[in-house]
């Protein structure tokens, strides 16, 4: 149990009726959470891909005469402190949020899986050393560390993605390692070793395919956290730099205008909330679908 919560992800799955027999896609479509979350995510993805045609204005076009206008037909979500259209900026902001969210999680997963598989497979001192390394990372408050690192080393998009991705690897590494440990005693691993498969082959051909469900679930649940992290850094002025509009940055922009222009902070934050809820819904649902009994946390 301790292990589960520590990995910091989301909650224990509920014991829902097992529907193992049906094919995967049927089970996925049958899961309300996956469907609801995925619908929102797909819509967001579409907004990101077609931002150019969906957004009514250029997100960076300033009309200084139209600063801080409330929601109207012309600007459904109002305008900001430089007279830019908030709706257009929210739409374009999906790119940063999804982009940073998914790419940083990809990094998390690659590093986490690598370390987790290596530690679990090798065992012994290698495992001990790698896990102590993971423990070191786990005991540092991640957001503070990121704030320091990004402030010091600057915030270009690629670095930012790398930093956020790296900062989350310990949780992923632990989960993967635990799964590898549970797979190691299984017969097919022993069989592969007996017929002389190299360790690399065992890891890639035999272990990895069996890790896919847990990796997918864990990755999905981490996307939301990564999006929130980027937004938090943007709030402190350290996120993705302009001209790309970012939701966290927009919320921060609105701080000084809470009284005169509530819409500047409110809508991007709402968008953030909805997208993160959606990723968590999908993650929860996937976990139920893949492995309802196991109750793994992220």
């Amino acid at each position, binding site marked *: 149990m301790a292990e589960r919560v520590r990995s910091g992800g989301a909650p224990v799955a509920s014991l829902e009726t097992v529907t193992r027999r049906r094919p995967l896609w049927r089970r996925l479509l049958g899961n309300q959470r996956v469907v609801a979350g995925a619908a929102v995510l797909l819509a967001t993805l579409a907004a990101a891909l077609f931002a150019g045609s969906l957004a009514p204005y250029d997100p960076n076009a300033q009309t200084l005469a139209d600063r801080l206008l409330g929601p109207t037909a012309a600007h459904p979500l109002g305008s900001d402190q430089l007279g830019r259209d908030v709706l257009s900026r929210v739409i374009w902001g999906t790119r940063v949020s999804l982009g940073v969210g998914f790419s940083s999680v990809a990094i998390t997963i690659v590093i986490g899986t690598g370390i987790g598989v290596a530690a679990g497979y090798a065992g012994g001192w290698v495992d001990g050393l790698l896990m102590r390394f993971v423990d070191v990372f786990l005991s540092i408050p991640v957001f503070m560390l990121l704030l320091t690192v990004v402030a010091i080393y600057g915030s270009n998009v690629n670095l930012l993605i790398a930093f956020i991705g790296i900062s989350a690897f310990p949780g992923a590494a632990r989960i993967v390692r635990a799964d590898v440990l549970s797979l190691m005693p299984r017969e097919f691993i022993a069989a592969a070793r007996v017929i002389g498969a190299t360790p690399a082959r065992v890891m890639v051909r035999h272990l990895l395919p069996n890790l896919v469900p847990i990796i997918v679930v864990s990755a999905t649940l981490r996307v939301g956290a990564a999006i929130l992290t980027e937004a938090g850094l943007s709030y402190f*002025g350290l996120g993705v730099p302009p001209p790309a509009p970012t939701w966290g940055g927009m919320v921060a922009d609105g701080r*000084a205008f809470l009284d005169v222009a509530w819409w500047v902070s409110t809508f991007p934050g709402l968008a953030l909330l909805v997208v993160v809820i959606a990723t968590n819904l999908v993650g929860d649902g996937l976990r139920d679908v893949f492995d309802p009994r196991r109750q793994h946390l992220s």
Partner: protein
Amino acid sequence: MRSMKLAGGSDGLTRRQLLALAGGAAALSALAACTPSTPTTATAAPSAAAASPATTATAAPSAAAASPAKKPGGQAVISLGEPDTLLSTASRALVFSYIRSFISNGMVRLKYPDMIVVPDLADTFTASPDGKTYTFNLHPKVKWQDGGAFSSEDAKFTLEFFCHPQNPAPMTTDFANIVGAKEFKDKLAGDVTGIKISGDKVEISLLAASPTFLTSVAVTTLLPKHILKDVAPADFAKHAFARKPVYTGPFKVDEWKAGESITYSAFADHFRGRPNLDKIVQRIYPDPSAPLADLRTGVLQQGFVTADQYAEFKSNANFATQELAGTLGWFLSWDMTNKTFPFGEKDFRIAMSHAVDRATLASALFKGLAEPSYSLASPLSWVANANAPKYAYDPARSRQLLDGLGWKVGPDGIRVKNGQRLEFATVLTTTTRDWFLAIQPMLQAIGVGTSKVDVVDFGTWVSRLAVGKYEQTMNGWGNFAIDPRADLASHFHSPTKAARGDATGYKNEQVDQLFLQAAKAATRDEEKRLYDQIQNIADGDCVYGYLFRPKVLNVNAKNVRLPQAKIQAEVYDGMPTWEVG
């Protein structure tokens, strides 16, 4: 850079936050050389001559008389950032220069806003005809806030601190100019022989006459010898004094609650009379949205707001408002040593300045509450040269100049020369980001591409503000924190710049020469003429693309009466005359 220091020193975000608190731009600089306070401002001002040798300045009689205490008592809650320390010799924060003005004194002080030297702890001061000996006659009834007796011993103790062999910081030129300072520093003498004291009199002899002696040495905030005499000079900042100091000013520090507030109370035995208020509480806010709500609900009695928020308070009968002059000037700065882009070309810089529509920026970004800026010196200070060249909005002229330099408009509107596009990167902080985004289209209009922006935190920005580390940036400089002559030297005198880290690479032999002449000027008039010439050349060279000075917008509760002020520093300097009723 200095201006940015204000906020940055303590906290990068501060930058943004303080600006918001301080009315969008009230930021001055890290260091005020000198801002002691007495309520006598109005009467104590002699003429500009006070600062020049061979003259005598006499303080107006009593301070208490100047502001007949109508309603003593009461408390004012104000909003100011958190200082790094309350020790005058160690603080690098702008906010401390404000605080200093109501808790401490020097022998003389600078009067706002023209920055002329006037008496403070010294009732009178005189300079010998050769300008090499100054005599200060200290006020006889000065007391330390802990009740300790004040004497000329304290003055000698404080000035010797700056020359002390155990002080890790090297002596500045003006201290080294005191007779015997070098010997003391080199441990060849037990004291600085050029500082002689007897009774209430302090006499200081210099190796050579210096027009900056008063503004860099005599203004020094005096420290109590009876508290610090046994502390090693290197350890002053570590002593409890740094967080609960004892000075001679009208308010004393009661308590500093870290991250929360600093409380001051009236010092009844202040030598110029007791201040009106009983108490000042300075609240410390990290986030710009916080003080605003407290100002509106009456928790705060005074604060500074942004132009967007100002209208609401101005039209509300519960508040009184004051528009103070912009003391922080913003400008575009370029690395003139850059080989790829024509930043070193005077005509290029002039073209950039001509491209900026300052009136539109002022009305769009500051609701008209900003002044266009064309120079580094504040128009309010005595050094300002009103007739120096100004490159106002004239995009046609910009295009002409760029064409003349051989940068021709390319197919996408960006100028090109020898295959090189006129498109470069700009380093910004969160404060300057929005402002620059508003300028971008104006530069685009003359064919200069500036869409590459790099927004960094304050600390990173400071380290990149050096030749070779950036292409273009937006910088701010606060006037009135130090002697206005030093403002100019910091940006135009190449040896001074080289010592402090040069951001532009600007070097003009003639300007350097003029600074040397000004340092030896015999009269203030001659000095002024030389500084006028310096500005004629430097402003003509368009060292920076000067933009605007946002006004500082003061809001206070109706029941608080503030002194009439032209600049923000005066609001704090005049703290003893505040009334709550």
